[in-house]
């Protein structure tokens, strides 16, 4: 166990998996120079063949990762910022998500495509996307979106070991957050297992990626008002741990879904719909979504920052829900 940051967790996960499996290699734009700090020491340790700087050709090199995976390699692609997945959308959706299926299982594509959610810091609309909900609508892609260093390390290691393609969405608002992380080279968190980050009885707050940490802060504040929040972190978006979410909502009877993505067709919407479909009988109040509204993200920090989910918005919603709730039936 050591206390490390989310970025260090990424670095460690990659480092360990590259040590353990010589088929694992990395590629991406400017990864050798280690822009965000997730490849510290890699070039020295693994050499140029396994730490590959690419031309600025996202569709080309992400597709090449798919091809390399088909022939037995296990690439980790660092696509840096999630917005740069759009140029690569065709290879991701038409090739990487579908090749195993369309060829009747002849192909496997064990690869990881990492990218960060680069919102909240005046990078303007073209660099601030949080596009995981789009990929959730495309079968064939597993998706992780961890909220702390421990989960990041365990899930990323599981992703590298998975024989399915995995997209890793790394929330830049968590980058410098620290947590205790096992050193065990075989510490993995299975894809598809969510985590109860805080237990509570009145409302289930399901948080996506960095929103988990906001939810935890809100829970703290609400606890002082006597409102008990259970914070559920799905961690993987595909597969999504329906069972854990539903179990919690069946206990609390109320749900708030907090998601930094745009509201329409967000992960929050998916989770809300799941709750309304499968835990309806337990619901005592509307299922609330707290998301970024369906506007783009502006550069000017004064108008950008209030657009994201916040502690204040969660606290307000929670108060409203508890007020609105019919009394607990025993």
């Amino acid at each position, binding site marked *: 166990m050591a206390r490390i940051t989310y970025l260090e967790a990424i670095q460690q996960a990659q480092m360990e998996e590259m040590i353990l499996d010589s088929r694992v290699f990395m590629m991406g734009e400017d990864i050798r120079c280690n822009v965000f700090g997730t490849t510290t020491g890699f070039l020295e340790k693994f050499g140029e063949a396994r730490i590959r700087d690419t031309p600025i050709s996202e569709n080309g090199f992400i597709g090449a990762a*798919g091809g390399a995976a088909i022939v037995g390699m296990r690439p980790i692609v660092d696509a840096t910022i999630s917005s740069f997945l759009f140029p690569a959308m065709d290879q991701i959706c038409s*090739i990487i998500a579908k*090749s195993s299926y369309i060829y009747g299982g002849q192909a496997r594509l064990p690869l990881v495509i990492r990218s960060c959610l680069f919102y909240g810091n005046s990078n303007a609309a073209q660099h601030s996307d949080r596009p995981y909900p789009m990929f959730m609508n495309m079968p064939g892609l597993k998706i992780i979106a961890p909220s702390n260093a421990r989960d990041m390390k365990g899930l990323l290691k599981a992703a590298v070991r998975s024989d399915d393609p995995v997209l890793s969405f790394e929330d830049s608002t968590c980058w410098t957050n620290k947590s205790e992380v096992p050193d065990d080279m075989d510490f993995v968190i299975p894809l598809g297992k969510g985590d109860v980050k805080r237990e509570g009885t009145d409302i289930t707050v399901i948080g996506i990626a960095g929103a988990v940490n906001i939810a935890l802060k809100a829970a703290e504040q609400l606890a002082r008002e006597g409102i008990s929040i259970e914070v559920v972190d799905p961690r993987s978006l595909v597969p999504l741990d329906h069972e854990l979410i539903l179990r919690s909502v069946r206990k609390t009877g109320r749900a708030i879904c907090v998601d930094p993505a745009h509201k329409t067709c967000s992960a929050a919407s998916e989770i809300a719909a799941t709750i309304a479909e499968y835990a309806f009988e337990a619901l005592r109040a509307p299922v609330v979504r707290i998301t970024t509204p369906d506007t783009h993200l502006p550069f000017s920090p004064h108008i950008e920052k209030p657009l994201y989910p916040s502690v204040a918005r969660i606290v307000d919603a929670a108060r409203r829900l508890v007020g609105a709730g019919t009394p607990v039936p025993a």
Partner: protein
Amino acid sequence: MTAVGDNDRGLEKYLRMQRIRQFENKAEAIHAQGEIPGALHTYAGMEASGVGACMALRDDDYMVGNHRSHGHPIAKGAMLRPLMAELLGKTTGICKGKGGSMHLSDFSMGSLGETSIVGSGGPVAVGAALGAQMQGLDRVALCFFGDGASSEGAIHEALNLAAVWQLPAIFVCENNRFGMSTPTSAGVAGENVADRAHGYGIPGVMVDGQDVDAVEIAVREAVDRARSGKGPTLIETKTYRYGDHAVNMGRELTPRGPDHEDWLARDPIVLHRLRLLEQGVPPAALDVIEAQVAEEVDDALSFARESAYPAFEEAFDHVFVDRLPIPEDVLAHA
């Protein structure tokens, strides 16, 4: 490796071209009768391009193709039964009925996908070449794509990437003079697709795509370069497709030019047959091959017809390595 002009190789090329032609003739006929669902894009007229190129490859070399997918796997040596079964959507199909006519890809023959999204095979081939290079194997990866596909960004990125990394990749642009209804000149700027090579600092080669030997020679040179670490080559096979973009569509999309008859007169199989006869191959040897292929095709069709359709549950296989849970309400009405 034996020489291009070698008798056995000559006969092998004849065999594979015959397989493609007869396989497709049969497929077209039963497609017209509704026995094959979906669209059928035939390769007739282009057999020398696929067979010449694949004959320059080893069995363990990789190949990526496109929507016009029947010719490539047969050229690489695939057996017909699983291909025909695939066309009929059977569980014995090469893709277990998941892929169909646009995706006849036999991975056991080094085929890594016949992808129907135009241009999308380029990056895959680059990745296979990269994998081979990193694994220290001396395999090469060959990518077939069309003249139309050359306009896709994916092909450009693939060429640049392969050239920057000096990968063992061979890009074969099968210029059959049209992309759907669009003449090459209306889709592709510049005289020849092969001219693009210069901009990437790699060799660009044009070859008569109706001459199976010429194609083999050109590709073999590229394969040798690639295998010896000298990087990729872009080859343009000048060829022609006989059928419309897809067959049995009810009307013709392709606006044939005045050169249409000239192209038909240079049928790659006829040309190769003539050459073999010139080289002293007895006509009977070729007739035997044709008859043998006819039997193979009939056998493949019988096999396909007798095979079962996939069980409904199979629709949930291969999205991921583990079968997906099947929603009850869907299963109830399947």
